[in-house]
Every structure is written in structure tokens, then in C-alpha cells.
């Protein structure tokens, strides 16, 4: 078995509003990440994916607060470390983050090379300035960025180049865990493919040991991630390998999510597209029972009565649902039967 790099247990983080209410955007999340693996996190907007990404860094800015749980990197709980140690020894070296909007992540008044020198002079005090620049140049080269990008201001680069530059800066110190928060959502399909291919190459060449990939684009996860967890209203509701979750989803929410995928592929036109009625619950006062119950076609009274615990039903797979796997599958099959009327979008 490969070495476990990251282990998160029962992590809770909350936003404190001006009215002193606590809004738990990440509510009891546990996950594990092995070396060489990519973990995908899927879910709709507002489900807490990005908050989870930020929380994993162990680094909290108000209004985001730490609410409990542990984040272990190679066996050390980073939440127990003093802030200075965390900053000098962990951020960037052990765990790094690629933000969602690369365009806003870079200070427009500084050349890219200066960001790199900033990072390196903090973490690699043994290097001279020339060595720092050549190290950065190597990284930029790897990400297929031209020499000119090194000496450019962020505004002089295209969107795809900026995104790659941000990746280069985030991975300068070859972090063990890389958290990529929608790294390609602002790019067109061709630049997206380049970014994804480069991230995969980094992983293959062990420049990055493992990765957490957050996106709402499920076809992308199918090709990038080894395992997928599905997030809903601050909780993880299903986990499995990417094949399992995409082709054989068990939780009603993931099932509906997978049915909303549209890809340009043969047979797609004949497929029925599902849409989930209603909106996710307000995280300020989440229902006590299943958080998906109000939008779920298969909800029964028992779903709403008490908190639903994670149910591990086979090796490496779990769901957060009262129904048994067999009964869920039977219900999906019954729904799949051809019907004259229904919410079909196309023909």
C-alpha cells in the first residue's frame, strides 16, 4: 500500500457572520489521500468545495474559522502547530494551493519572477538569486511558458498562461499535496486540456506527490481523478473510484448529478437529462436529518428524523443515505423504464 500523505478527520470550519451566527460550510469532513493519487471533489456551487480547499491549508482568515477536527500531513497534525511553523515548514512545501481565479491571484504591479523570488527567499534561504531565477525558469519551462513570461507583468499574459504561471508558482517547492480549486474553469477547452495535461505530467514525474482536484465538471474528473468524493451542503455524501461514482452512483444526489452531465458523445442526444428540483439548504440552519431529503425523490419520513451517518458498503466506497444500495439501484432502474411523460429535455 502506498504511503498516506494526507489524512483529514472530522474537519469542521465555519464562517462567522456579522450577526455572530456560525455558518458551517465544511461540516465533519473526513478524507484520506495516498501518494500518487488524485482525489476529486465534486458538487454544485455553494456546497462548500472551495471552503474545504481553503480549510485544508490549515490557514484561516476571518470570517473563516476553524471549528474542530484534524488535518494530518505525513502523520503530523498541522492544526496543532504554531502559526509560524505552519507557514515556514508546511505551506508551499508540504501543501500548496492553486486558486480558482488565477487572474485575481497575482498582484498586477509585480513581475512574475518577483513572486517566485519572494517564495524562494522565504523557504530556500540557501539559494542565491541567480539560482532562484534558474529554478523558476526550469519550472516555467516545464509548464511550457516562454522565457518572456518570467519577466512579464500578469496583465501581459493570456488567461491560459496566467493559470499556468500560477501553477508554476504554487509548485515551486514541489509540494506533497497540491490542492487545485477549479484550475481550468475559466479557460476555453483547448487551454483547459493543456493545463490538465501538465498537471498530470507533474504527478507522473513526481514533482507533486498527490493532488486534490475540485471541480463541478464531472467529465473532467473522470479523466483526472482516481477517486471522487461528492459533497453536498458541507458534507461528503458519497465516495468511490471515479469509474464507480460516475457510472454507478449510489447516493440519490450523485445519481442526479451524473444525469446532468452533457458531453459531445454518441448516444448523448437520446439520453434523458435530469434536473434536481429546489435549491440546497441554507447552511445557517441545516435540517437535522438528511440534508438532501427536501430535494430527493426517494426521501421517506425516517430520512428527516436524525442525522444520517456514513455507511461504508464496500471496500473504499461509502454513501450517506438511509436506503440500502440494492433498494436504491432498484429505484433507479424502475425510473429508467421508458415513460410517455416525464421531465425529458430532448425528444
Amino acid at each position, binding site marked *: 500500500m502506498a504511503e498516506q500523505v494526507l489524512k483529514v478527520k472530522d474537519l469542521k470550519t465555519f464562517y462567522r457572520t456579522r450577526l455572530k451566527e456560525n455558518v458551517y460550510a465544511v461540516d465533519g469532513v473526513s478524507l484520506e489521500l495516498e501518494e500518487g493519487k488524485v482525489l476529486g471533489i465534486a458538487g454544485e456551487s455553494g456546497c462548500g468545495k472551495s471552503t474545504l480547499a481553503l480549510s485544508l491549508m490549515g490557514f484561516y482568515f476571518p470570517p473563516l474559522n476553524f471549528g474542530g477536527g484534524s488535518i494530518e500531513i505525513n502523520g503530523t497534525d498541522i492544526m496543532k502547530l504554531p502559526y509560524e511553523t505552519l507557514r515556514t515548514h508546511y505551506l508551499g512545501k508540504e501543501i500548496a494551493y492553486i486558486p480558482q481565479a488565477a487572474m485575481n491571484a497575482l498582484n498586477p504591479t509585480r513581475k512574475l519572477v518577483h513572486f517566485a523570488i519572494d517564495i524562494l527567499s522565504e523557504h530556500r534561504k540557501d539559494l542565491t538569486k541567480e539560482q532562484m531565477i534558474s529554478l523558476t525558469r526550469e519550472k516555467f519551462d516545464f509548464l511550457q511558458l516562454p522565457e518572456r513570461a518570467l519577466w512579464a507583468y500578469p496583465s501581459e499574459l493570456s488567461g491560459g498562461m496566467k493559470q499556468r504561471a500560477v501553477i508554476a508558482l504554487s509548485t515551486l517547492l514541489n509540494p506533497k499535496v497540491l490542492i487545485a480549486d477549479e484550475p481550468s474553469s475559466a479557460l476555453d*477547452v483547448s487551454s483547459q*486540456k493543456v493545463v490538465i*495535461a501538465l498537471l498530470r505530467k507533474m504527478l507522473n514525474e513526481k514533482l507533486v506527490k498527490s493532488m486534490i482536484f475540485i471541480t463541478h465538471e464531472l*467529465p473532467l474528473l473522470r479523466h483526472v481523478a482516481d477517486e471522487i468524493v461528492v459533497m453536498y451542503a458541507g458534507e461528503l455524501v458519497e465516495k468511490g473510484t471515479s469509474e464507480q461514482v460516475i457510472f454507478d452512483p449510489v447516493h440519490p444526489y450523485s445519481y442526479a448529478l451524473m444525469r446532468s*452531465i*452533457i458531453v459531445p*458523445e454518441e448516444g448523448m442526444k437520446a439520453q434523458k*437529462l435530469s434536473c434536481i428540483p429546489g435549491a440546497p439548504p441554507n447552511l445557517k440552519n441545516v435540517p437535522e436529518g438528511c440534508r438532501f431529503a427536501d430535494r430527493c425523490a426517494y426521501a421517506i419520513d425516517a430520512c428527516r428524523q436524525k442525522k444520517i451517518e456514513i455507511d461504508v458498503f464496500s471496500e473504499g466506497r461509502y454513501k450517506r443515505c438511509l436506503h440500502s444500495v440494492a433498494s436504491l439501484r432498484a429505484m433507479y432502474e424502475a425510473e429508467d423504464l421508458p415513460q410517455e411523460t416525464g421531465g425529458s429535455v*430532448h425528444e
Partner: protein
Amino acid sequence: MSNQKKCFDQVLIETRKVNKVFGSGKKSVHAVKDMDFLLHKGEIVSIVGQSGSGKTTLAKILLGLLKETNGEIIYDGKRRDLSSLQKRRAYWQNIQAIFQDPFSTFNQFFRVEKILNDCLNLQELGHLSIEEKRDRMRDACQFVNLKYEELYNKYPFELSGGQMQRLMIARIFMMKPNVLIADEPTSMIDACSRSTILDMLMKLRDERQMTILFITHDLGLAYYVSDTLYIMENGETVERGEASQVILNPQHPYTRRLVSDVPKLREEWDLELA
């Protein structure tokens, strides 16, 4: 809807050799080049292309928000004439649009009620009684699964992106246009709300025989909803044809590249770097 192949015979909008040039001299940009384009009644057409391919410019020309540099646009058998405000108003009763960014489509100073009320005024229905107006607004909100009672007193920025996009469709529902131009209607919302929006648009098409033009870079969406596809590159149409033909059997190298760049579910995705 039947599974038979639909045939469209009535041409609603036709463009003949439409060009659009921005600027002049050395710095000019030829955004749309000799565009020949047909939109039949009840048809769903998608124009697919990457950023900068001129697809939004074309949409704006069709909407009458930009003036074409040269070429002819024929609407409903006659040459389109937008020379006076009155004629433009009449044109916009027939042709409406949904834009990409739901956050900037509404006037932030108007409440939802006023936004919807303005649709009635544009249709010269301002004389209706308040109750009747409310009923119509309520119907429109119900169509898009919004609750009029919860919304009417809110400002657009108090709504979520998905809600705003649905409110946009509620407007379309009230305006009853013949043609809808949807410019990247789903690029800012997630997959789940996307299918809801598509579902509503298809319903409108089926009930009203509405003609829809999708402008998008999302090949999957274009393939799924449309009858006819146009692929645009640098202001020119490089390929056009029946949607399944274009996507499953692309002829032009640009289309082929575009199709291969999209991650699929069942097919392998070739991640080799060029």
C-alpha cells in the same frame, strides 16, 4: 415531440454575406467575415467557437445592437429595417436575448416586479389591471420554478446566479418572442442548474414553436440541444451541418481539434502534449 426527423421549411432570419469590421486602417479587426446564415422557424441552431471567433458579434448584429458593416439581413421575408426607434421596438418584440452574465443583465436599481412589469409595457399591455398584471407575472415565475411572492420586492443582486438566469427566462416567457438568442446562457452556472435552464428553454420551444439560437463554446450543450450546428473560427464558418453529423463525424480539422479537446465520459481523453 416525435422522434421523427423534423423538417424546417419556413426561413425566419437569413443573413447574406454579412461582414463586421471594427476600427479602420491597419488596426481594423474583421470580426465576422461573409457570414451566410439561416434560421428556420422552430429550429434550434448553435454557433460554436472559441473566444474571439466572432460569435457574440454575430449575435449582437442579429439582435440589432450592432450595425453590420455590409451585407443583408432578411427577417421574415423582408429586409430588416431598424432605422427608427418604433421599428426597433417592433423588432425586439419578436427577437429577445439571454446573456452570459446573469449578474449584469438586470438594472441593479429596479426591483424584480418592475423588471417583469417592463416586459408587459414593452408589449403594449400597460393598460391591464394590476391584478391581471400580477397574474401574468405569477404565471411566468411559476414557469421557471420561482415564487413571485418571495421575489417581487427584491433587487437583482439579492438573487443567486441560477435564480437570475431563471428570472431572465421568465421574462422570455412573458415576452413571447419568435426568436430567442441565447449567448452563453449557462457558462456561469453549474451543471445542475444548467439542465434546469435547458429544460425550460426546450419547453418554451415545444409550446410556442420558438426558434432558438445558442451561442456557446460548450460543444456538449450544442450537440445536445441543437438541430443545426455552425462552427466558427476567426469570423468564418468552417463547418456547418446537422448537429450529430458535425460532432460525431467532424470534417474540418478545427472541428476535429475542438471535439477532441473536450473531455468525454466513455471515450479515452488523449492527454499527450503537443
